[in-house]
């Protein structure tokens, strides 16, 4: 967990840029006692934004689109995990039936049905 000033030093990123990204809601630190507090997830997200800009040439216009798509992707992945977790708790017969249907595989023959 880091305050804004510490992050400026650690990531070698100008303060104005970080503040701008928070204003644009690209990263969402909490506020405590008037200062921004960046969690470990927030810091990793800032690093990802830096990488997207510098290494992949994503500009300011494209960045919100990219971040939104990534967030939706991760959201769907998490829902998938929860769903699969629930499937795992089903009785064996139902679970097998579901897995065959989802995976499209016939367990016995090993080929796609």
């Amino acid at each position: 967990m880091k305050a804004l000033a510490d992050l400026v030093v650690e990531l070698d990123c100008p303060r104005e840029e970080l503040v701008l990204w928070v204003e644009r809601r690209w990263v969402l630190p909490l506020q405590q006692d008037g200062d921004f507090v960046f969690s470990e997830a927030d810091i990793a997200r800032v690093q990802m934004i830096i990488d997207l800009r510098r290494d992949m040439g994503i500009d300011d216009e494209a960045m919100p689109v990219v971040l939104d798509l990534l967030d939706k992707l991760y959201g769907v992945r998490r829902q998938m995990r929860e769903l699969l977790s629930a499937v795992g708790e089903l009785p064996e017969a139902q679970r097998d039936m579901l897995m065959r249907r989802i995976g499209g595989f016939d367990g016995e023959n090993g080929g796609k049905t």
Partner: protein
Amino acid sequence: MRDPYDTLGVPRTASADDIKKAYRQLAKKLHPDLNPGNAKAAAQFKEVSAANDLLSDPEKRARFDRGEIDASGAEVRRRPSYRSYAESPGGAKYSGGIDPEDIFEEFFSGRQPSGNRSGSGFRSGFKARGADVAYEMKVDFLDAARGAKRRLTLPDGKILDVTIPPGSHDGQQLRLKGQGTPGLGGGAAGDAYIQIEVSPHPYFRREGVDIHLELPVTLSEAVAGAKIPVPTIDGTVTMTIPKGSNTGSTLRLKGKGVPDGGGRGDQYVRLTVVLPEGVDAELERFVQNWGQRDYDVRGKLGGPK
């Protein structure tokens, strides 16, 4: 591996030209072809050559300066990438919440997608609990020890009033029921988990439920005893230093530690005798005339006295 700037003998602000010149000079001296049979020169040349490979390549030099690669060109271990947080409660504030157009809601609320007459939605209502969200919060030492109420502003502007229980530990998780992502179809909202990081205190140290403090005392306070003010987490109290105290003497203030269940731990005060700053002529005179001045302190260490 040695810093490549040192190896070439140039400052970090050296221009590409400076680096080229420095390398050429060293190469003229150390090149193996000009120093046959000289193993030392060969080894040095290898180092100089590697430093030049790194610093003469603008991309590599920039990465080295930023700390992304080390002198050998290997990637420096970075913190985990965002992906490892994205699907966990730590990333839930970015991707949590179920989009109304989501496939799940389509099925479970019984709504049909437009244009599809023979939909396969479930008629019965479906409830899903919202995802949990994780936050992190820095807490002052005294607030953690005594308990406090602190205010956290969430990214959406919502204000969370967090009650920090007395005796909270560094790394402890506080659970705020129902403050996570809203549920679906009338399902319960998830919880918010707040992990607290307790800042160290300049002079109090916590061990279990006790508070430890190192207290400097004067020569006369230790020798003759005294009543002196001592800080505790509740405020200053007066403590009696017995006659004949010494560095290492530890005094206990009962019930001045950290709250624990119904009771409280204790505060332990360890004395450090501190002589006056600089040379005090009077003290020096006294000590020289003092009959006891050569008492044994190093006997346990052995060797000559």
